[in-house]
């Protein structure tokens, strides 16, 4: 199938995307994982947070153990006797949720800031971009770490920390793209009509900055999931009532030294597969949108 068969821009994009088998496979993996996470309450063998169903006698059993309530724990059980497969499915839900929410808010904040700076230019632009540059010179992990320490544990506190650590990447990218768009004729044409500045920024400039932003968004969602896991592992992220993958790994860490690897390793494998798959998709999208690599 050639690019001619597809008519819409999205269709052409998909045709090109399909050329990379790795990327299609990665996209499939992301889709399956998201589906598993969404459907977790329906497909998980056990509700891992229903305390009445937990049997302490079954705690820390290896993969394949048949529990006292009759069904097989394919990935073993954790310290409280939870079925690990179920805990991972529920953990994925929380990790993906936090990553998506943080990514979306950072996207909106960063894009607005970057486009506004590019639109106004002059001192406002210089000041805003100077702040963004300064923030980008600090490692995101450090900012997120300090903020979650200050804000305390909790889902929204964590989201706030992740957004603060990540919005600057979106602002930077939008600003670069919007500054290039700003000098084009269609923007001048739009400005010569009695449209408000806000309308020109959001309806005319921003949509043309979307391609590079999509790339940044993919990679930043993967980063948000990874950061959340790191913070939760260090005990600074989510509260115990929201057991994400990072926390499952942290809970299993102490048992790993005595050889009970599965409590940490399997949630970790789920996390890695998810992050690597998202990054592979992001890599392909970036290559496709990079005009320098066009044949």
């Amino acid at each position, binding site marked *: 199938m050639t690019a001619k068969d597809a008519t819409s821009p999205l269709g052409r994009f998909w045709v090109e995307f399909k050329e990379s088998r790795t990327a299609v496979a990665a996209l499939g993996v992301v889709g399956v994982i998201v589906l598993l996470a969404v459907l977790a309450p329906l497909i998980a063998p056990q509700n891992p947070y229903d305390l009445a169903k937990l049997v302490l006698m079954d705690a820390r059993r290896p993969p394949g153990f048949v529990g006292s309530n009759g069904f097989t724990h394919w990935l073993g059980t954790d310290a409280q006797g939870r079925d690990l497969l179920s805990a991972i499915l529920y953990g994925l839900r929380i990790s993906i949720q936090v990553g998506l929410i943080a990514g979306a808010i950072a996207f909106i904040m960063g894009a607005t800031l970057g486009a506004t700076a590019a639109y106004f230019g002059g001192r406002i632009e210089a000041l805003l971009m100077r702040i963004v540059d300064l923030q980008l010179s600090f490692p995101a992990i450090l900012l997120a770490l300090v903020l979650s320490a200050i804000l305390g544990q909790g889902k929204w506190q964590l989201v706030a920390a992740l957004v603060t650590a990540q919005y600057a990447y979106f602002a930077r990218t939008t600003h670069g793209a919007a500054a290039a768009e700003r000098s084009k004729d269609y923007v001048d044409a739009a400005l010569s009509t009695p449209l408000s500045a806000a309308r020109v920024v959001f309806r005319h400039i921003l949509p043309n900055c979307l391609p590079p932003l999509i790339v940044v968004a993919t990679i930043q969602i993967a980063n948000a999931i990874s950061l959340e896991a*790191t913070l939760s592992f260090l*005990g*600074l992220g989510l509260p115990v009532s929201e057991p994400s993958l990072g926390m499952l790994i942290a809970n299993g860490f102490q048992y*790993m030294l005595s050889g009970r690897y599965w409590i940490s390793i399997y949630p970790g494998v789920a996390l890695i597969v998810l992050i690597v798959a998202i990054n592979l998709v992001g890599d392909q999208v970036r290559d496709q949108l990079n005009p320098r690599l066009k044949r």
Partner: protein
Amino acid sequence: MLGFVIQRLLQAFVVMLIISLLVFVGVYAVGNPIDVMISPDATQQIREATIKAYGLDQPLWQQYATFLGRLMRGDFGRSFVFNMPVLDLIFSRLPATLELTLAAVLGATLLGVPLGMYAGYRPDSRFGKLVMAVSILGFSVPTFWIGLVLIFTFAVTLGWLPAGGRGATQSVFGVEWSFLTADGWRFMLLPAINLALFKFALMVRLARAGTRETMLTDTVKFARAAGLSEWTILRRHVLRLIAIPIVTVFGLEFGSTLAFAVVTETIFSWPGIGKLIIDSISTLDRPVMVAYLMLVALLFIMINFLVDIAYAALDPRLRVKRA
């Protein structure tokens, strides 16, 4: 040029002041350190005396003013938990972080650059593709997870290396170093590999991209025409041309690795400043948190300042535009 330097110095100073305010107010919003410092069954008198002794009864702006005044004299206060001057505490932990960071960044560069050059020289070879695959993994997989896998493989399953701690050290001018003893290296190896993997991935990418571009230039064609061996071309010409971005990134990464070491140090119980900050967050040791954050901010602002100056020295347009 002098005007530009002075302007940037003033900017850096203002930024430091703002950061000090943010850090101070932010950290002082965290919990109540009095509960950590004195036992719960202490009398009300002891409680109030302790609060007074640490100046915690004063309004926030007054505490900040006192803090700034001390800071100017290089006094960061005393740790609540260790009951020693914070600066001494941080400097006693700094060598551990410094040698770990140096081992990681040096190792990543010495291994990553040649491998990346090979992957750029033979991009379609099997080994070149393998190097790139490892580098993609190094980018995507979170540091703490790699640390866990390393511990599980080499410490728990194989039992070759210790799972954490620092081991024997050798004292040089009153500073303890691990890299001088064989036992110290055994303890340092796993955390150093853990810390190095991300840098390694970065170096591989940089070297590969640089080599691919350079191999197509006239420099290489002329060198080949002159009859130089491929090995000499790679070593004498390509390596020199790609060295500039690599040296820049090496410097920048060294700074960020000092801060990034938090995760690795926590997993391997490596007694450096990264472990110190995590411990001080959980014990609400405010003076240590404030001092660590201020020092890290100072480090990054200094790096930025130097980069700005270097760029301005190299590109005259920046001096005119920004000054």
